[in-house]
């Protein structure tokens, strides 16, 4: 250990991490890079809290009669797992951590447009998360993350109010982050950085931000009405006095379906960056990938009804929602095909970020294609409310979003910390995550197809083999997530010093030092080339990165 310390050269350069010290310099910072690290710490904590609940559920489901907890506790576990993973990890993860760090760097600005509002977003996140954790330790909540009425408004005796208020406050955090990104991308791009020279990550973040500012307020309305209903019992969602519980589902899914794209669009942006860099090729069909992000953002607002095919909807509305849901497959497929075409004849290298990216492409494709089963009216009647749905969205959310998040964290880790991570360990962890993930969730497709309903604490004995497989996979997956936690922490102190551009990547963030100075660039950058100016080995274009 002392040898490693002695080898590290003395830190002489001033950068954003050593420009100032002390707890106040972090908690009152308006530097987007430091705020990104505040978010990194918070979402990582929430990820492992939510993950611990998943572990408890998987242990419980080893036995058909339930092995670990009371059925009421099981209800609370899957509810809090969903609330934490969706609201407090997946939605903020890539935008608030990587987006916060990268958007100003990628546009060549000194900071986001509203640095103080950016810090406020983090405090709102912390306030919301604190309420959710309070709800968790003071009895938990058992409505499912969807807060369906009239159960949530009239019957549930758990901590609905605290959890809902937490989600409501978190919404403001999400809105302000999205607003900050849109203004920054519109108004603060460096000279020469035209819209179609922007990295595709920025297009993805831009599309995500649009969904955040248009969708989040509507779920705020829904949550507000649930809160007022619980306070005053006026009956807006209570059919006994003329209210309509289905209205809540419309308001809820009007946000919560687009929210799926808040969770998956930023990962798509990350994958575009990684795939091009480790294929040493310009992305195939830049404009198509950019516009497909925007298309997904627009279509995402027109498909919410597919969550409600079996909860009471006119057959014609269902038909239209089904067709519109199929439309989302087009821009999603454009992305997958274009990444694949980018790989074609590229000089591919298999560093850890690339392994995560390749894993993403495969798993996202499976998650997306199984989504079509659920968008089809007839098959949805059979599969709705079964483990097939659980498997489908975990392929998107874990196989897609979390894989890309891990890939992105590894890709930009040298830029964020100024240190390299141990590549062998990272590749090993990526492989373990891939194997563990598939072993956990593929059996759930089969369970769902065979008819095992989700959200049940017990199940018939014939489903045990597949459930045990899933639980075994979850333990492998858990190890796959713990390994990076260890070596990434280790690398902050003992990792080799990172050069400014370890992957020889394009993009403004790689043209400044690692870690960047507080004002991001010593000299304000000017952009003179298209995005992803990679070339074959030995070519002039490629040598320009050395």
């Amino acid at each position, binding site marked *: 250990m002392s040898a490693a310390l002695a080898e590290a050269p003395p830190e002489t350069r*001033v950068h954003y991490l050593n*420009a*100032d010290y002390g707890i106040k310099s972090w908690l009152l910072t308006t530097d987007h890079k430091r705020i990104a690290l505040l978010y990194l710490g918070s979402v990582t904590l929430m990820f492992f809290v939510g993950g611990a609940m998943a572990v408890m559920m998987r242990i419980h489901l080893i036995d058909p009669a339930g092995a670990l907890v009371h059925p009421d506790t099981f209800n609370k576990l899957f509810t809090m797992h969903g609330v934490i993973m969706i609201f407090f990890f997946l939605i903020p993860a890539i935008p608030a951590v990587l987006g916060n760090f990268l958007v100003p760097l990628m546009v060549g*600005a*000194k*900071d*986001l*447009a*509203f*640095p103080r509002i950016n810090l406020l977003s983090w405090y709102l996140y912390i306030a919301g998360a604190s309420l959710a954790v309070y709800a968790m330790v003071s009895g938990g909540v058992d409505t499912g993350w969807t807060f369906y009425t009239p159960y949530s408004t009239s019957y549930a005796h758990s901590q609905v109010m605290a959890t809902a208020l937490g989600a409501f406050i978190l919404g403001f955090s999400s*809105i302000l982050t999205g*607003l*900050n990104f*849109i*203004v*920054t991308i*519109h*108004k*603060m791009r460096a000279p020469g950085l035209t819209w179609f020279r922007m990295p595709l990550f920025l297009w993805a973040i831009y599309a995500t931000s649009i969904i955040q*500012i*248009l*969708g*989040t*307020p*509507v779920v*705020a*309305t*829904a949550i*507000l*009405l649930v809160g*007022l209903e619980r*306070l*005053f*019992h*006026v*009956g*807006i969602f209570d059919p006994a*006095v*003329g*209210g*309509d519980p289905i*209205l809540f589902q419309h*308001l809820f899914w*009007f946000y919560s379906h687009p929210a799926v794209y808040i969770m998956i669009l930023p990962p798509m942006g990350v994958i575009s960056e990684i795939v091009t860099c480790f294929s040493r090729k310009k992305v195939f069909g830049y404009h198509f990938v950019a516009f497909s992000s925007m298309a997904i953002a627009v279509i995402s607002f027109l498909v919410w009804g597919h969550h409600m095919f079996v909860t009471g909807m006119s057959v014609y509305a269902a038909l239209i929602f089904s067709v519109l849901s199929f439309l989302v497959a087009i821009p999603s497929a454009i992305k997958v095909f274009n990444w694949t075409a980018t790989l074609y004849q590229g000089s591919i290298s298999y560093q850890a970020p690339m392994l995560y990216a390749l894993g993403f492409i495969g798993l996202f494709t499976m998650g997306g294609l199984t989504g079509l089963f659920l968008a089809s009216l007839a098959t949805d009647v059979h599969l709705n409310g079964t483990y097939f749905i659980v498997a489908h969205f975990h392929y998107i959310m874990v196989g897609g979003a979390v894989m890309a998040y891990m890939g992105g964290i590894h890709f930009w880790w040298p830029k964020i910390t100024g240190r390299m991570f141990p590549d062998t360990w990272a590749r090993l962890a990526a492989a373990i995550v891939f194997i563990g993930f598939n072993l956990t969730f593929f059996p759930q497709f089969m369970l769902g197809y065979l008819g095992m309903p989700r959200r049940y604490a017990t199940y018939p004995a014939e489903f045990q083999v597949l459930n045990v497989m899933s639980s075994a996979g979850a333990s492998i997956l858990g190890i796959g997530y713990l390994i990076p936690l260890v070596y990434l922490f280790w690398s902050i102190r003992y990792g080799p010093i990172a050069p400014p551009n370890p992957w020889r990547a394009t993009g403004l963030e790689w043209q400044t030092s690692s870690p960047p100075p*507080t*004002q991001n660039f010593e000299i*304000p950058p000017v952009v003179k080339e298209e995005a992803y100016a990679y070339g074959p080995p030995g070519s002039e274009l490629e040598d320009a990165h050395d």
Partner: protein
Amino acid sequence: MTDAASAHSSQHPPYLAHHFTDIEQQNESGTLGMWLFLLTEIMFFGGLFASYAIYRLRYFEAFREGSHLLNVKFGAINTAVLIGSSLTMALAVRAAQLSRRKAIIAFIILTMVLGIAFIGIKLNYEWSADYHEGLIPWMGFHVESPNAAGVRLFFCFYFFMTGLHALHMVVGLGIMCVLLHMAAKGRFDGGYFAPVEITGLYWHFVDIVWIFLFPLLYLIGGRY
């Protein structure tokens, strides 16, 4: 870092934040930010308006009955008061552009007086009367009608929407206190008035929400 920062800021006017290249960029960013925020507000109220529309169609007669129980006179007076406050707000922005410090302060105070008058009329002449007439759905609601359930839903929306609107006005009044403080210290002139302008945008938005609320709540009875 502090040396660099102070050397850096000395080249800029004091109101230009360090991360913007020029005042134009800063102003445009602030204005765009407020427009985007207003977009979220439209969606926020939009959820309530959509819900209102659904129940309005389902309980058509009951909503008409409920509307008749509101006091159109005070609603109309309040509409005039609020439009007047939008005018004084616009005049405050103009005064800021012309660097007329006393006029800025006067017009902001006038806007605040009108805003407070609106809330005062609402509280004193409308909501308190509603309470005595038993129209508050969660406080001794009592309406003699075969459509009482629908009327109760109408009043749910009436109180949620006007309450939320009033809450936005209170926030606006709070922001104006800050503006007043800044104006008194002579922070605004023809070169820098973005906070006044942006607050103006917000205030006009709150006004426009009322322009939609007034007919949807007070005038749907169709007798006037």
